[in-house]
């Protein structure tokens, strides 16, 4: 399966197993979503399980919160992560704090799926990576898969989770394991082992990172598209990097991270979001807090620049394998 098929399969499994699962969002019903992630689900599971929603992200999340309070398990799609902001208040003030403010009497078992990240000439409003805004919010979980197998297992885990989960899907990975070489033809998922996705139910647990490449020279912390970029950079520089795919940003698998950095003594953090106050800042802060006396070089961050995502210059903006490779080199040589 490619990533879209894997996500589709996850929702199909969830709809089949749990009658409380309800999916809605803009264009997700008859049409099956602008990226086709919900293709066929309305036909199979019925109009009231999978349906179109008005263009009102704030309303969509509010309605999900209300349905969650009733006992449903809503899975909503925000068409692009760039359009999640009208829902900020319902996410931060409501979903995130419902369990806390009611002493556990109510909660928000909702999943908010959203395609995110750049690389499709989407300009400033179809390319953003807003995860760092939401990882700051106590009560929210944030998950970002990097391949079809994880995507399905993590999405099922997110749907089954009783806390609100933001599930950001790197849209540049929908059709293949894009490694940042935008000028080369895209390899399809079918050639990648993680495209072997079981048809049925399984979960990839939230909060567990994955070491996708073992190494000794430096630890690279990445998620989503950047996992593939980091692997490419390691390969191309020949640096023996340990590449960790975080998979879940909150809760974070800090143990896997610190175990690795304590051993390698060096760390590079990679993400596509703007740098300042991005999730990489938290990673750098944590790593130096926990591994200070093992660190042999400053922790570098390779990220999107602190500008909006420019339409014509997205490849100058995107932190590709060249930039990651240079950071690896600087870090191992420091």
């Amino acid at each position, binding site marked *: 399966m490619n990533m879209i098929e894997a996500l589709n399969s996850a929702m199909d499994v969830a709809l089949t197993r749990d009658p409380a699962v309800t999916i809605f969002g803009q264009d997700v019903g008859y049409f099956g979503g602008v990226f086709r992630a919900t293709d066929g689900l309305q036909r199979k599971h019925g109009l009231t399980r999978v349906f179109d929603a008005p263009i009102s992200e704030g309303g969509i999340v509010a309605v999900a919160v209300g349905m969650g*309070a009733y006992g449903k398990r809503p899975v909503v799609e925000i068409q692009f992560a760039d359009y999640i902001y009208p829902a900020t208040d319902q996410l931060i003030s409501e979903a995130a704090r419902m369990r806390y*403010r009611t002493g556990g*009497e109510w909660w928000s078992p909702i999943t908010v799926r959203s395609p995110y990240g750049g690389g499709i000439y989407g300009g400033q409003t179809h390319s953003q990576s807003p995860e760092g805004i939401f990882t700051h919010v106590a009560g929210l979980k944030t998950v970002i898969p990097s391949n079809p197998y994880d995507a399905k297992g993590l999405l099922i885990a997110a749907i089954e989770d009783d806390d609100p989960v933001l599930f950001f899907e790197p849209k540049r990975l929908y059709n293949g394991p894009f490694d940042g070489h935008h000028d080369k033809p895209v390899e399809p998922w079918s050639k990648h082992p993680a495209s072997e996705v079981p048809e049925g139910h399984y979960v990839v647990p939230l909060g567990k990172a994955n070491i996708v490449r073992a190494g000794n020279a430096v630890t690279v912390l990445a998620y989503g598209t950047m996992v593939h970029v980091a692997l490419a950079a390691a390969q191309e520089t020949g640096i023996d990097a340990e590449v960790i795919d975080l998979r879940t940003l909150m809760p974070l698998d800090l143990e896997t991270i610190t175990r690795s950095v304590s051993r390698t003594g060096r760390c590079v953090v990679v993400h596509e979001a703007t740098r300042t106050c991005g999730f990489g800042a938290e990673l750098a802060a944590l790593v130096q807090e926990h591994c200070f006396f093992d660190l042999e070089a400053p922790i570098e961050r390779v990220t999107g620049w602190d500008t909006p995502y420019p339409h014509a210059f997205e490849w100058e903006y995107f932190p590709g394998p060249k930039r990651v490779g240079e950071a690896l080199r600087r870090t191992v040589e420091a």
Partner: protein
Amino acid sequence: MLKNSSRLHIPEPGCRPGETPDMSHITVPPAGEVRRPAEDVDPAEIRDLAWALIRVLDDGGNPVGDWNPGLSADALEKGLRAMMLTRAYDARMVRVQRQGKTSFYMKSTGEEAVAVAAALALEYGDMCFPTYRQQGLLVARDWPLVDMMNQVYSNSRDRLKGRQMPVFYSSREAGFFSISGNLGTQYSQAVGWAMASAADSDSRIAAAWIGEGATAEGDFHHALTFASVYQAPVVLNIVNNQWAISSFSGIAGGERTTFASRGLGYGIPSLRVDGNDFLAVYAVTRWAANRARSGLGPTVIELFTYRAEGHSTSDDPSKYRPGTEAAVWPLGDPIERLKAHMIGAGLWSEDQHAALERELEEVVRAAGKESESYGTLKEGARIPASTMFDDVYKEMPPHLVEQRKQAGL
């Protein structure tokens, strides 16, 4: 070029402190005048009701017209009692706040019918999404005052574990949804709850309340949009008490039309009702609830009332409106009006009323004593501080375990 003769219009209330209060712009139509349409009426046929004012009790306390719900003596007494108990409860809680036993309080004085009549018109299982000013729902549903007070005191028995500001109650059991500090958010959540109920063909409906000031939030629009699109079984109440802290209703759009009329643009039947007329509020709520329950979707109800006191204990209304404005407010007091009706109908007497007043004061005093024995905000027992790390997530993730340790708790 054409001259723009427009000036920026800044709405201003009729009178300010030091001026003679004036509510002569409010026209009060006679009770009984507005027709009661069949519950399955086509919304397009009753658009005029959004600009009417449904009233049952006339000036003499007699119930008149189609909307008279014909309540039993029992039901009337239950309503009167709940309104009076709410008022007595409010009075005590403001007193204890002034004594420093808690941080904050908000009364519903003068608006008790809005919550109490609705609570009695709804079924117990119907789910309420209130604002901070519908404590009357809990009282009318016989929720223990002690439990409410425990919340106000953030004491050792506070089910919300000291996390919420006073009056931000939550009671799943009583169908009273958690109060949010963020205005308006509950309104669209209610629609989601109702959609879920409809999807399950559940007999329960939802009801939501919002202040006229907060109708300006996007959530209000989201609620009406989703309710209309999916025909959610929900009663959408707008409590127009004419003030939002210091801003009069004109700042929310009240100068040009009624708040009920907001519903028309979504094709939702929209009624405007005398919010201080217990019988009218009951009747209208019942009409809307019946519609919702029988699959006819949402109704918008504007409850026209008046915030007789300050916004909260943090507020001083004499800074922005004449202190005597309440005296000229033409729709009176909901308790006085129901009392007059019951006496007029031979169901009640001044003596009974005075006795009930004394009884309820005692009920409140006893509840207060009990609750205070579980602690108040700054004195006595409280929940262990370590609980502040609970319930952020269903299971405590490692970083919070670590932080709890760092906090030494």
